[in-house]
C-alpha cells in the first residue's frame, strides 16, 4: 500500500461523508419541505404532468396500493424495453446495423434494467444500437427512482403514527424525476463530456494507427448515458468493460466524479432518514456503521491487491496484482471503486473483478451477499440496512428489558415475519441457484476459471443478481441460457421478494403508535448501536455464506498462499 493510496482512500471517504448533509437536506426539501429552489422551473411541469396523467396528488395510498402502483409502473417499463430490444433492427439510430436481440437476452436485459440491476449478459458496443442504448438509459433513469420511492415510503412508516397510508407513488415518482434526477443528470453529463467522454451520434470511427494498423473505435451518446448509469447507481455500461473503458472514465478525476454523483443519493438518504424521523443522530449512526464497514472493505481489498500473486512471484515478478486493472486508476483507486460499487447496489466496474486476488474478490462478493446494505443504491440499501436495524433491535433489544422497539415503533411478530422473509430470499436464491448451477451441465458450462474460483464466479453472479448489483466476475458465461434465466429470476426475487415485505413492514409501522424515547428505551444512535449494527450485518452475512465462501475465495486464498497447487474443481 502506498501513502498516496491510503491518504487518497481516507480523503475520498471523508468527501463521501461530507455529501450526506447537503444532499439529505435537499431530499428533505423535495419530499417533506415546503419547496426547493427548482420550484419555479419544475413546479409548472410537475402540475402539468399530473393533469395529463390523471394523478390526484392529494390522494394518499396504503402500502398495498403503493406497491401495486410501483409494480405496474415497473411492468410497463419492462414490457416496453423487451419489445424494443426484440425489434432493434427496424428501429432508427442503428449506424452499425446491429441485429435484434433474442428472447433470452431480451428477457434478461429487460429484467435487469427494470430492477436497477443492470447486469449485462451482452457486450454493449457489439450488441446495442444507439436507440436501444437510449431505451436502456430511460430505465437507468426511472428504475432507481422507483427504488428511492420505496425508501421514502418506508421511512414514512417510521415518521408517521396511527396512519394508514405511506404517500402517493405517482407524486414521489414525479417529484424525484423532476427535482432530483433530471437536473443532476444534465449537469453531470456535461461535466463528463468535458472530461473526455464522447457524446455523439456519429458511427464508430475507423482509424489507421500510428504503427499503420487498423482500429475501429466504438463511440456514441456516451455522456448522457454514463451520467444516468452512474448517478442512478445502475452501472449498466455503454461499453462492455463498463467504467473501465477509457471513454467512460478517461481518468482518475472522471472516475472520482462518477463515484461522487453515484454515492450522493444513497449517502444523503441516511441524513434524510434522520431528518424525517426527527432525530438526525439516527441517520448519522446508520451512516457511521455503513462507512466503517465500507472503509474496512476497501482496505482489505487494497491490501489483497498490492501483494504479489505467489504464482507470478515464482516467475521472478513482483508488484501488485494488475491483471484486469487499468493503470490510470491503479490498485488503490480500483480497490476503492470496486468496493464502493458493490457496497452501493451499483455494479459499475472499473476493474475486472474476476481477476482480483481471492480475498480482494471476496470483498465485493461479501458486500453483495450481506444485502448491499453497506451503503446501498437509491433507496434499497437504506431499506435493507433498516431491516437489519430491526433485526439488531429485535435480537439485542430485549436485553434492555423492554420488548423491542425501533424509533418508537414496537417490533412485533408481523414485522419479524416480513424481515425474516426479506432475509431468507437472498440466502435461498444465492445458495440455491448456485447449488443448482454447480450440479447442472448448463451451469458448469459457464465457468471460466477452474477450481474454487469457478465457484466464486457462480456465487458472484447470483449475489449480483439478487442484490440488483449488476457487476460480475466477467469470465462467467452470462449469456448462456442457463444464466440469462436464473440470473433473471434472481434479479426479480432480489427486487420484489425483498422489498415488498419491506413495504409491508412500513405499512404496519405507520399504523402503530409511536412510543416516545426515554432513559429506558433502547438507544439506536451512538457508537454502541453502530457497533451492534455492524456485528449483525457481518455475522448474519458471514454465518449464512461462510461455508460457500470457504469453498470459494477462502479456499483459493489459502491454497494460493500455502503453496498448494489448485486441486479439485471441474
Amino acid at each position: 500500500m502506498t501513502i498516496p493510496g491510503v491518504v487518497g482512500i481516507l480523503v475520498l471517504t471523508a468527501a463521501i461523508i461530507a455529501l450526506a448533509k447537503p444532499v439529505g437536506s435537499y431530499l428533505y426539501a423535495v419530499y417533506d419541505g415546503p419547496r426547493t429552489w427548482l420550484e419555479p422551473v419544475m413546479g409548472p411541469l410537475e402540475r402539468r404532468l399530473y393533469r395529463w396523467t390523471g394523478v390526484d396528488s392529494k390522494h394518499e395510498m396504503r402500502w398495498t396500493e403503493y406497491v401495486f402502483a410501483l409494480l405496474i409502473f415497473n411492468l410497463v417499463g419492462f414490457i416496453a424495453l423487451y419489445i424494443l430490444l426484440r425489434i432493434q433492427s427496424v428501429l432508427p439510430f442503428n449506424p452499425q446495423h446491429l441485429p435484434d436481440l433474442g428472447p433470452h437476452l431480451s428477457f434478461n436485459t429487460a429484467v435487469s434494467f427494470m430492477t436497477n440491476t443492470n447486469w449485462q449478459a451482452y457486450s454493449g458496443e457489439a450488441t446495442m444500437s444507439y436507440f436501444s442504448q437510449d431505451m436502456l438509459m430511460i430505465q437507468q433513469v426511472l428504475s432507481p427512482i422507483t427504488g428511492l420511492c420505496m425508501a421514502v415510503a418506508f421511512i414514512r412508516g417510521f415518521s408517521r403514527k396511527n396512519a394508514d397510508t405511506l404517500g402517493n407513488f405517482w407524486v414521489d415518482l414525479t417529484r424525484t424525476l423532476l427535482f432530483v434526477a433530471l437536473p443532476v443528470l444534465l449537469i453531470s453529463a456535461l461535466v463528463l463530456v468535458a472530461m473526455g467522454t464522447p457524446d455523439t451520434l456519429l458511427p464508430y470511427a475507423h482509424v489507421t494507427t500510428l504503427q499503420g494498423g487498423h482500429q475501429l473505435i466504438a463511440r456514441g451518446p456516451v455522456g448522457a448515458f454514463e451520467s444516468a448509469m452512474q448517478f442512478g447507481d445502475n452501472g449498466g455500461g455503454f461499453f462492455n468493460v463498463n467504467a473501465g473503458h477509457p471513454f467512460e472514465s478517461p481518468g482518475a478525476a472522471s472516475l472520482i466524479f462518477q463515484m461522487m454523483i453515484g454515492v450522493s443519493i444513497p449517502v444523503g438518504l441516511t441524513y434524510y432518514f434522520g431528518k424525517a424521523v426527527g432525530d438526525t443522530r439516527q441517520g448519522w449512526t446508520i451512516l457511521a456503521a455503513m462507512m466503517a464497514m465500507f472503509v474496512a472493505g476497501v482496505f482489505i481489498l487494497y491490501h489483497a491487491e498490492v501483494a504479489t500473486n505467489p504464482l507470478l512471484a515464482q516467475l521472478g515478478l513482483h508488484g501488485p496484482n494488475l491483471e484486469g486493472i487499468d493503470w490510470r486508476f491503479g490498485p488503490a483507486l480500483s480497490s476503492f471503486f470496486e468496493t464502493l460499487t458493490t457496497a452501493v447496489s451499483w455494479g459499475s466496474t472499473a476493474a475486472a473483478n474476476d481477476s482480483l486476488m481471492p480475498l480482494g474478490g471476496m470483498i465485493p462478493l461479501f458486500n453483495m451477499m450481506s444485502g448491499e446494505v453497506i451503503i446501498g443504491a437509491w433507496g434499497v440499501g437504506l431499506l435493507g440496512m433498516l431491516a437489519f436495524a430491526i433485526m439488531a433491535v429485535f435480537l439485542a433489544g430485549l436485553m434492555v428489558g423492554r420488548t423491542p422497539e425501533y424509533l418508537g415503533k414496537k417490533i412485533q411478530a408481523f414485522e419479524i415475519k416480513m424481515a425474516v422473509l426479506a432475509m431468507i430470499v437472498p440466502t435461498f436464491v444465492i445458495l440455491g441457484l448456485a447449488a443448482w448451477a454447480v450440479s447442472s451441465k448448463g451451469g458448469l458450462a459457464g465457468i471460466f476459471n477452474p477450481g474454487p474460483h469457478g465457484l466464486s464466479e457462480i456465487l458472484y453472479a447470483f449475489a449480483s443478481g439478487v442484490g440488483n448489483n449488476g457487476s460480475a466476475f466477467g469470465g462467467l458465461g452470462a449469456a448462456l441460457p442457463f444464466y440469462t434465466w436464473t440470473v433473471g429470476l434472481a434479479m426479480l426475487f432480489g427486487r420484489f421478494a425483498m422489498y415488498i415485505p419491506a413495504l409491508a413492514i412500513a405499512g404496519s409501522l405507520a399504523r402503530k403508535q409511536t412510543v416516545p424515547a426515554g432513559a429506558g428505551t433502547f438507544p439506536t444512535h451512538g457508537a454502541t448501536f453502530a457497533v451492534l449494527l455492524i456485528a449483525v450485518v457481518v455475522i448474519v452475512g458471514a454465518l449464512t455464506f461462510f461455508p460457500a465462501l470457504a469453498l470459494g475465495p477462502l479456499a483459493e486464498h489459502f491454497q494460493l498462499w500455502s503453496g498448494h497447487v489448485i486441486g479439485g474443481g471441474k
Partner: protein
Amino acid sequence: MIRHTWTAVRLFVLMAILAGFIYPAIVLGISQLTMAYQANGSLVHYHGRVVGAKMIGQSFTSPKFFHGRPSAADYNAAASTASNLGPSNPALVKEVKASLALVLKQNPGLRASQVPMDLVTSSDSGLDPNISPQAAYLQVPRVARANGLPVSVVRALVTRNIHGRFLGLYGEPRLNVLELNLALVSLVKSNGS
C-alpha cells in the same frame, strides 16, 4: 386498479420522453456545440489523418515504438474486454509467462525482477492507453537503438511525458503510450531532418 395501470402507461411515456429524448438531446446539443472535440471521441490527428483516440490504447509491436500493456481485446476498440483470468488460474500464469518472455526478448539484458507488473498483465478495458514510468524506462534502450537516437534523449522524452497522480493522490504516475510515441515520431523527424 385499471386507473393506476392507465396512469402508469401515460406517466411512463411522458417520463420516457423527458428522460430518453429531451435530456439526451440537450446533452448532445450542448456537447456538440461547445465541446465537439471531446464529444466525438478526442480523436488525434497526425499530419492530417486520424491516428487514434487520445485515451484509447492502440497496439504497438514494432521495436521502434514504445509498447503498451498486453491486451485481452487485442486493442480492438469496438470489443473492449478484460482477460477475466483468476489469480489462481494456470492460464494466467501461462499468459504472464509468455508476455514476460516477450518483454525479456525484446529488451535484452533485463531480469524478470526488473519488469513491472503492468507490462506483463492485461488491463481491464483491454484498451489501457497508459504504462508506468518504469515500463517506459525499460524500453528506452530498445527504442533508442531502433530509432538511432541517443538513449539520454529518449530517456528525457519519457521523463517529459510522465503524468502525475490526480491531486497528487489518485491513480498512478503514468505515460500515455500514443502521446509518447507521437512525441517520439516528432523527435525522430526533427532529428532526421
